[in-house]
């Protein structure tokens, strides 16, 4: 069947959307602003001479432009989003309702604390929940996202080492860690040494021991790791790390797989960030800022950054400066303006309170069950990288595509035609041509079955030798394959008006 080109280039509801600058008509405007009266400026000659170059558009043009762009989006509100390692779970509307309450949405960080007691109590309550769920004695709420939380933890470790008068140079990071871990260690001035993974995809005590020494400040370990596997030797690893005088940083990005099931403190962890946008369902991936509160052990708690909330007989107040710290607190400084991602605190707490302890237990239970269901139903057609059962995500590699002429990339592109956002590809690097899927607790069995049928069908099509089909994919999208190479090598980041 040959496709007949439409006259407009539009295909039904798939409209060829132009750039907003290309709709520009300088004598058109959506806002009728009165002409400016003559005035004398006091800008000392810095007054702008020309226009700012904004396009002139009528209101319906603006609304249609952005609405049509939004219709080209794929999001968790449109369908299953199995992006491994990213935990794209549904953001309940109740969270949004809470975040829009006037007393929480229409306040300013500079308001007198007497007028924002409710907001401070909310931060205090969230801290309480995070400490309860992890068994840790302290939490720093201000880190702005996961990697920022890592930075918080490693800066606390550095502060503790400084207080001990020790100049340890190295942080150990297993191959199965999140990519941000070595970056965090390096930003804090540490030398990064890699710990090789076992055949099983996990880290062994022996491998950690072999790298430990008086030069090691910390081990950063992602658990469950980025292959979707739990680290069963974690307690013993923490023991040997502490014996060597170092600290244990656990990357808590995958806390969603264990929340309500294990207490992080029991694993011997000294610092762990929690991605509120992963475990506690606040929006991310373009939908909202992340938020990475970091829980700290008794050894690191004194170094927690400002600001933090304290409660005394007069109510709640904020400790904003290091000099105001009381008791044995020795904050290492401040990481962020104001008090953290407050809007995310509201949403995360709304989620916790809506679900309760038993509900949060079911979150991790369902997330792990869903991942294992995918694993079990796809293991015979794809190639599972490691032996299950898995935790929150299922990792496959490209052995099932051997000699088919189809690559992981082609396979992912074909999945777009089936109406799904593809899984994570080519990550983690420890396996070849990785396909990493994380269904989260959001999905029903029916939704998973539908996705599984699509993936199974594609795998069978690839094995049947239809490589050309995959090389063409996607064919049903507004754009086919983009020239990612050219885009990376010669990115065009600025619109320039066409030459007259």
């Amino acid at each position, binding site marked *: 069947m040959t496709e007949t080109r439409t006259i407009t280039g539009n295909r039904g509801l798939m409209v060829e959307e132009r750039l907003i600058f290309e709709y520009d008509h300088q004598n058109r405007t959506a806002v009728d602003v009165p002409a400016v009266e003559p005035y004398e400026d006091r800008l000392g000659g810095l007054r702008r001479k020309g226009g700012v170059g904004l396009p002139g558009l009528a209101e319906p043009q603006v609304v249609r432009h952005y609405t049509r762009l939004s219709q080209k989006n794929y999001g968790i509100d449109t369908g299953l989003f199995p992006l491994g390692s990213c935990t794209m779970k549904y953001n309940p509307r109740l969270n949004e309702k809470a975040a829009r309450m006037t007393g929480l949405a229409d306040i300013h960080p500079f308001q007198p604390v007497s007028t924002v007691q409710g907001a401070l109590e909310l931060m205090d309550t969230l801290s309480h929940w995070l400490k309860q769920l992890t068994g840790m004695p302290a939490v720093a709420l201000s880190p702005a996202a996961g990697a920022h939380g890592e930075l918080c933890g490693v800066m606390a470790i550095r502060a503790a080492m400084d207080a001990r008068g020790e100049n340890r140079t190295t942080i150990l990071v297993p191959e199965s860690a999140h990519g941000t871990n070595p970056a965090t260690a390096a930003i804090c001035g540490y030398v990064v040494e890699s710990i090789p993974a076992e055949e099983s995809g996990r880290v062994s005590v022996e491998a950690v021991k072999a790298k430990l020494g008086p030069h090691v400040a910390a081990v950063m370990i992602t658990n469950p790791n980025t292959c979707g596997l739990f680290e069963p030797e974690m307690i013993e690893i923490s023991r040997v790390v502490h014996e060597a005088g170092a600290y244990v940083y656990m990357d808590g990005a995958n806390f969603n797989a264990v929340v309500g099931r294990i207490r992080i403190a029991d694993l011997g962890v000294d610092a762990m960030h929690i991605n509120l946008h992963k475990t506690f369902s606040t929006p991310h991936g373009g939908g909202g800022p992340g938020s990475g509160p970091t829980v700290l052990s008794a050894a690191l708690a004194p170094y927690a950054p400002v600001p933090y909330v304290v409660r005394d007989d007069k109510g709640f107040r904020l400790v904003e400066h290091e000099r105001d710290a009381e008791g044995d607190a020795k904050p290492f400084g401040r990481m962020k303006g104001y008090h953290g991602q407050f809007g995310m605190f509201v949403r995360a707490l709304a989620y916790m309170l809506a679900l309760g302890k038993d509900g949060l237990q079911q979150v991790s239970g369902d997330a792990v069950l869903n991942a294992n269901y995918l694993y079990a139903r796809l293991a015979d057609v794809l190639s599972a990288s490691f032996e299950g059962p898995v935790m929150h995500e299922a990792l496959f590699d490209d052995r099932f595509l051997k000699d088919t002429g189809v690559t992981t*990339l082609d396979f992912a592109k074909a999945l777009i035609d089936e109406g799904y956002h593809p899984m994570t590809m080519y*990550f983690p*690097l420890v396996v070849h041509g990785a396909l990493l899927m994380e269904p989260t607790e959001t999905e029903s069995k029916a939704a998973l079955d539908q996705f599984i049928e699509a993936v199974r069908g594609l795998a069978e099509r690839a094995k049947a030798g239809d490589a050309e089909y995959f090389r063409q994919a996607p064919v049903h999208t507004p754009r086919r394959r983009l020239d*990612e*190479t050219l885009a*990376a*090598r010669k990115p065009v980041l600025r619109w320039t008006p066409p030459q007259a």
Partner: protein
Amino acid sequence: MTTLYFTEEHEWIAVDGDVATVGITDFAQGQLGDVVFVEVPDAGKAVSKGKEAAVVESVKAASDVYSPVSGTVTEGNQALVDDPALVNRDPEGEGWFFKVTISGTGDLEGLMDKAAYDAFVASL
């Protein structure tokens, strides 16, 4: 006379006396896919055997390039910085990464020759 060696990290090293040229193998560029960014060391930089010396980034992944020997860099391939696609077009020729003066005498031990490397790749 130039002798060619290979590492398990898929670097090649062409050695002539104490002068060596380092790059990544054809297999490595094939695995990386289209290379979009390369960072090479400046002349005068000291590199250590098995440690990061350069960076290569493709549409799929960013990777370190390790120096197969210890020594001092005499030249980084600027042509590669300007045109990263050279790595894909001619990985074992014009797409070299850096030249180095070898300091350690035993440094070439443990490196593979062409036959051993080909067998290593076939085993992957």
